[in-house]
C-alpha cells in the first residue's frame, strides 16, 4: 500500500539576528591609563572614522556595558557593520600617544551566548 503523502515544510534562517555582539577588552602597554565610557566610545568611533570615513563612523554602535577597572565592554553593532568595526579595532594602535591594543574575546549574533565563555572555564 503506498504511504500517504507527507507534507514537508522547510524553514531556512539566513541570519535571524540583525545585530552582532562583541566582547572586547582594551589593553595598554603602560598601566595607569583610565577611560570613562564616553571616552571609550569616542575612541571606537574615531578608529572607525580613520579607516572607513565619516559614512561608516555613523553606524549605530552601542556600548551595552562597560567596566572601567578592566577596560572591557560589550558592544552591539548591526550585522552589516561587524567586519568594518572588527577591522578598525584591529588596526587601532594608540590612544593619546599611548600604545594600546583591542583584544576581541567573543563575538556572537546572540547576546545570551556572551554570558558564558568556554575559554574561561575553570575545571576543578
Amino acid at each position, binding site marked *: 500500500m503506498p504511504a500517504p503523502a507527507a507534507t514537508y515544510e522547510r524553514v531556512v534562517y539566513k541570519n535571524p539576528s540583525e545585530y552582532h555582539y562583541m566582547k572586547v577588552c582594551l589593553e595598554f602597554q603602560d598601566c595607569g591609563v583610565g577611560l570613562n565610557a564616553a571616552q571609550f566610545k569616542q575612541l571606537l568611533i574615531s578608529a*572607525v*572614522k580613520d*579607516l*572607513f*570615513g*565619516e*559614512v*561608516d563612523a555613523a553606524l549605530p554602535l552601542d556600548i551595552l556595558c562597560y567596566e572601567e577597572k578592566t577596560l572591557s565592554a560589550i558592544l552591539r553593532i548591526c550585522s552589516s557593520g561587524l567586519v568594518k568595526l572588527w577591522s578598525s579595532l584591529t588596526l587601532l594602535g594608540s590612544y593619546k600617544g599611548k600604545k594600546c591594543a583591542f583584544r576581541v574575546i567573543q563575538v556572537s549574533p546572540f547576546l545570551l551566548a556572551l554570558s558564558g565563555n568556554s575559554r574561561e572555564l575553570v575545571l576543578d
Partner: protein
Amino acid sequence: MVRFKHRYLLCELVSDDPRCRLSLDDRVLSSLVRDTIARMHGTFGAAACSIGFAVRYLNAYTGIVLLRCRKEFYQLVWSALPFITYLENKGHRYPCFFNTLHVGGTIRTCQKFLIQYNRKQLLILLQNCTDEGEREAIQKSVTRSCLLEEEEESSEEAAETME
C-alpha cells in the same frame, strides 16, 4: 577576457558664480575629489578609489567633467560627490555642487549621452533666452546640430542596409 573594467561618471559642475567654472583645473579637481573620498570613506576608500582614478575630460565653459574609476569601487566615488560643496582656487572659495548626469562603462557611451544632453540643453536655452542676438545664435546652433543628427542617422541606416 581579463582586463580592468572602469566606470565613467559624467558630472556637471553647478555654481552661482561664473568665475567658478573658469577656474576649473584637472589637478585642482582631482585633488578635491580625492580629499572628499578620504574624508567620507577613510583610508580604505581613499586607497581603493585612487588606483584607477583619473579626470578624463574637462570643459571649463559648460562645466562638464568626466571621471574614471574602477568598477568595483565606483559607488564609493559616486557617493562622495554630493559632499563637495566648494571649489578652492588661489585662495578664493566658490560654492558649487556636482550633478551626476550619467554613469557609463566606456567613454563612447558617455559621449553619446553628452551629445543628446547638449542638444536638449540648447532647446531649453532657446526657450529661456531674452536677447535677440543670443536667440539667433542659439537657433543657428540648434539647426546645425539637427543637420548633424540627420547625417548620423542616415549613415547608421546605410551601414545597416549594407549588412
